[in-house]
């Protein structure tokens, strides 16, 4: 077993913590969208183009929050499986040591055979479950990453709309676009780190 594999339950815990943080940051996106809508209403017809953008920011926030929560649950389940797998791997290791130390020298060694087979089977089943959960986690992170990539377009569109707004509202819309960009970048960093952690689990 490699060193990174020895840290598999640590990696899963880091992913769970990252996604918890991402959920909190995503909630800021909702706030940004609500603020943008208020500014838009005050700005009148010159900011009408902002409506679909604020809807898109809201949708992005909702998708990010729900996806982060989902990934968090998968990571927490994976973490529990990892701990079980660690225990099972340890049992296999200690039982192997028994066989190595008494090879040919114990009347009752065979009485362990059924138990050792069961322990190895349980470990194999946990390995399979772990692989399935890792793939699910990887897919979900990839899906969220795709949503966030699309969010970069939002920033550009916000800036375009800001340029058409009247002078006193222009800066507010520029701030909205900057908030969207900053928040999305923060979440993307957490997702990227999580993807690297999941890569350790493969």
């Amino acid at each position, binding site marked *: 077993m490699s060193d990174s594999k020895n840290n598999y339950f640590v990696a899963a815990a880091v992913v769970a913590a990252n996604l918890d943080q991402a959920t909190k940051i995503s909630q800021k996106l909702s706030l940004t969208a609500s603020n943008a809508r208020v500014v838009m209403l005050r700005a009148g017809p010159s900011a009408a183009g902002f409506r679909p953008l604020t809807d898109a920011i809201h949708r992005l926030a909702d998708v990010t929050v729900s996806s982060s929560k989902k990934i968090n649950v998968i990571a927490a389940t994976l973490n529990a499986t990892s701990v079980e797998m660690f225990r099972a791997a340890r049992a296999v290791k*200690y039982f192997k040591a028994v066989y190595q130390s*008494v090879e040919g020298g*114990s*009347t*009752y060694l065979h009485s362990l055979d059924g*138990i050792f087979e069961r322990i190895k089977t349980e470990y194999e089943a946990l390995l399979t479950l772990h692989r399935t959960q890792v793939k699910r986690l990887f897919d979900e992170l990839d899906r969220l990453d795709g949503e966030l990539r699309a969010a970069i377009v939002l920033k550009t569109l916000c800036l375009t709309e800001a340029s058409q707004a009247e002078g006193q509202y222009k800066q507010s819309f520029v701030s909205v676009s900057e908030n969207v960009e900053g928040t999305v970048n923060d979440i993307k960093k957490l997702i990227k780190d999580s993807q690297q952690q999941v890569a350790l689990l493969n």
Partner: protein
Amino acid sequence: MKVEKLYEDDAHKWLAFGRDPSKVNGIIDTNQYMVTSENNSLLIDPGGVELFSAMLANVIKEVPVEKITHLFASHQDPDIISSLGLWDQALSTAKLHSPWLWEGFIRHYGMKNISYEPIADDGGILMLDDITLQFVPAHFLHSSGNMNVYDPKAKILMSGDIGAALEDNDVPLFVDDFNSHVSKMKMFHQRWMPSNEAKNDWVERVRKLDIEMMCPQHGRIFKGDDVKRFIDWFDTLEVGKLNVSR
């Protein structure tokens, strides 16, 4: 790991396991014991995780694994029972006898298959086929919920931490010179045992028992007159002292 037969009468046996040369550095040396009867075996203070493989390897030289039907943990410490999670994989229907006080704590070591049989504060009895084993209270010596095992037929008292000594790994299994052995026990008892009242209670209790051999979980086993010598020495020792030198 050395295995020493302490008593044998047909199927009734006491075995001591200890002085494991492959033991990981830095962990305290421990003695484990096993009592066997016709169809059952009791593992007494089976030890820590690091000792599990050596213990199981030696135990199955003596009995098939399905014959290990009972475990006993004198108290909750890791050197006593942190191997529980692994024994739990090996012994799916065994019972663990330990003070009631520690059930919620000991389960942290991992226990899905073995069942917990709580021992009441005033002790109890375990029948191993026709062999009667008594759980003798030894609270606060050192743990606040603590038991010894007494076998009236074999006249053996497994005394847990009472009688323990801090020594090198490869010393003899039996006390050969009580007076020189005292220096290896004194600090252990004064620092790890907090209560003179509890100590006096135990002394009074065990003076009534017919003991041929007293088997601690660390250090050497006391035989014959050395058992009485130990009880007399312990009776006068002041425990619960902080500033004692090693």
